[in-house]
């Protein structure tokens, strides 16, 4: 069988598209969360740590006896709290969004590991929970509820951003905070709120990993997914619909490399395939860099009465 027919076989199987939608889910949620923060003018490099905390907190809540949806809520609340920390330091205080974000990532990650180790001091094999089950629907539609929620949220975020006064306010503080201020809007409050909501979405992306995709929490399980989401936001030029398409396209490539890895039967080192998502993200950034239209106030702190 030649290469093309292998690829064709893969693309025509329902199992492949099931995998694509599953792989895309955390990217959809994470990208949507980052997009919301950046549309309000705040780069959130805390995403990797927020996803880790969401994964740990959601799983831990369920492991301690809560039901799955409570776990999802706990994850979202923890994400919003870390988001509040990031926002408090970068919005009213105007600290470097780069360095604060890295700090939030370090904090979220280390806090997750600390709590996990504290509760489970010597778990050599990670304990498991009963995760979300796929709905009984035919073919690629047999997904867990969180996947459906992720795609629903794309529509919700798009609607809110482009069709409601709240969304207009969010976009405005990300483009021209001084003008927003002149309209009587509270720039600080809107930015803080957007970062908290976005961070809650990032935590949902993490919770999907432990409550849907797997049934346990591993160290390093987020594995750079957050950073890829940041690249996807640029690739999507800050639009929710495009972000979803970008995440799907990315998931197609990721699912494809997994299957090609199996099909190649170990002729090529598996690491080469695992590198693809990261290299692909860099490539995507290079491709769109020239025409990227950043929110104009992205990474610029706003203080009343200062220009």
């Amino acid at each position, binding site marked *: 069988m030649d290469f093309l027919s292998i690829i064709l076989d893969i693309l025509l199987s329902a199992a492949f598209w099931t995998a694509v939608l599953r792989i895309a889910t955390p990217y959809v949620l994470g990208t949507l969360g980052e997009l919301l923060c950046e549309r309000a003018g705040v780069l959130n490099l805390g995403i990797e740590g927020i996803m880790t905390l969401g994964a740990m907190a959601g799983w831990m809540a369920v492991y301690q006896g809560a039901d799955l949806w409570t776990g999802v809520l706990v994850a979202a609340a923890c994400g919003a709290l870390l988001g509040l920390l990031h926002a408090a330091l970068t919005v009213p205080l105007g600290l470097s969004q780069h*360095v604060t974000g890295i700090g939030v990532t370090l904090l979220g990650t280390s806090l997750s590991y600390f709590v996990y*180790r504290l509760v489970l001091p010597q778990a050599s094999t990670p304990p498991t929970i009963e995760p979300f089950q796929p709905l009984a629907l035919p073919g690629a539609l047999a997904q867990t509820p969180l996947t459906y929620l992720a795609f629903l949220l794309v529509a919700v975020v798009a609607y809110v951003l482009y069709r409601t006064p709240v969304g207009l306010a969010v976009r405005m503080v990300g483009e021209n905070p001084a003008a927003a201020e002149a309209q009587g809007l509270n720039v600080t409050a809107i930015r803080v709120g957007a970062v908290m909501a976005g961070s809650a979405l990032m935590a949902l992306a993490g919770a999907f990993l432990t409550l849907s995709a797997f049934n346990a929490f591993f160290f390093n399980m987020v594995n750079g997914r957050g950073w890829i989401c940041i690249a996807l936001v640029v690739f999507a030029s800050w639009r929710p619909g495009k972000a979803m398409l970008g995440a799907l396209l990315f998931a197609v490539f990721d699912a494809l490399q997994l299957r090609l890895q199996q099909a190649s039967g170990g002729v090529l080192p598996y690491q080469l395939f695992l590198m693809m998502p990261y290299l692909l993200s*860099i490539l995507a950034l290079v491709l769109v860099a020239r025409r990227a239209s950043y929110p104009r106030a992205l990474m610029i702190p706003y203080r009343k009465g200062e220009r």
Partner: protein
Amino acid sequence: MRLEPRTDTPLALRLLAPVGAVVAALALCALLVAWTGAPVLRAYGLLFEGAVGSRFALTETLTRATPLILTGLAAAVAFRAKLWNIGAEGQLYMGALAAVVVGGGMLDLPAWALIPVVMIAGMAAGGVTLLGPAMLKVRFGVDEVVTTLLLNFVVLLLVSMLLEGPLKDPMGMGWPQSAPVAEAAELPKLVERTRLHAGLTIALGLSVLLWLVDTRTIWGYENRAVGANPRAAAFAGMPVTRIMLRTALLSGGLAGLAGAAEVCGLKGYLTLDLSPGFGYSGIVVAMLAQLHPIGVVGAALFIAGIFVGADAMSRAMPVPNYIADVLVAASLLCMLVAGLLARYRLRRG
């Protein structure tokens, strides 16, 4: 009440800021320690003892500080020029990779010649790794934060691939590790029967050298000017792009050197767990030092002490040693606030 920038930050405040930040971080993390049920003061006492309480502890802390000084310098020189190099972890591994390739017996040289060659190879490998993202930044305007972060994962996979492939030690009992470097490539020990090696001397020498370059040469002046305001620097006739790329080579090179020194001074061979996040901790070191090359030494010693001391403490108490990572992260965030308080003052009205 509003914040007003100071025209001039007194030296005492600049020195007080990191101290205040560290105290605040320790106080915040005391809540976590208390949550575990361990007595807080005794836990911190054990941490302190484990870091500096004995000759052994002290040499361990110094050993741990060696790569942190280098990655701290890597972050400091890059951040000074507003080049957000978050990829020191990957550059460190590239340096280590170059060290085991060049120092692995392909050159038959005496130690006085081989050690410099291996170290320079490590620097070159690290520098080139950052040159890529830096070129993408100056040529296409691609944000270097994301590209350097993503490259960390690519480099780790590359190292993993080589350690399971061409670089795998045939005598390694099947473990993915490289063959040891030649004996002539090993850095001499500074203190007998400890792990402390000459990498520390190199790191200390470089921080003094960088401080001199920074304050006494045109090079350092240009770097600072580009960091402060690239447009103004360009109008003043400075070759901004070239300065950026030069800074990238230097920053990546310092991180690469950290990897080469760890291999040749401490481990002797390369594994996938060579660095427990030295690249990321280097960012915290640089921020605590307020990007000052000499300050980096003090900050690196502090962070190293936290890690070494927390290991000792968690052996005696039911406090997971991840408390060290939490402390480091909290120090970074507290330092950002402390730095702000030092640069601004509160004004009524």
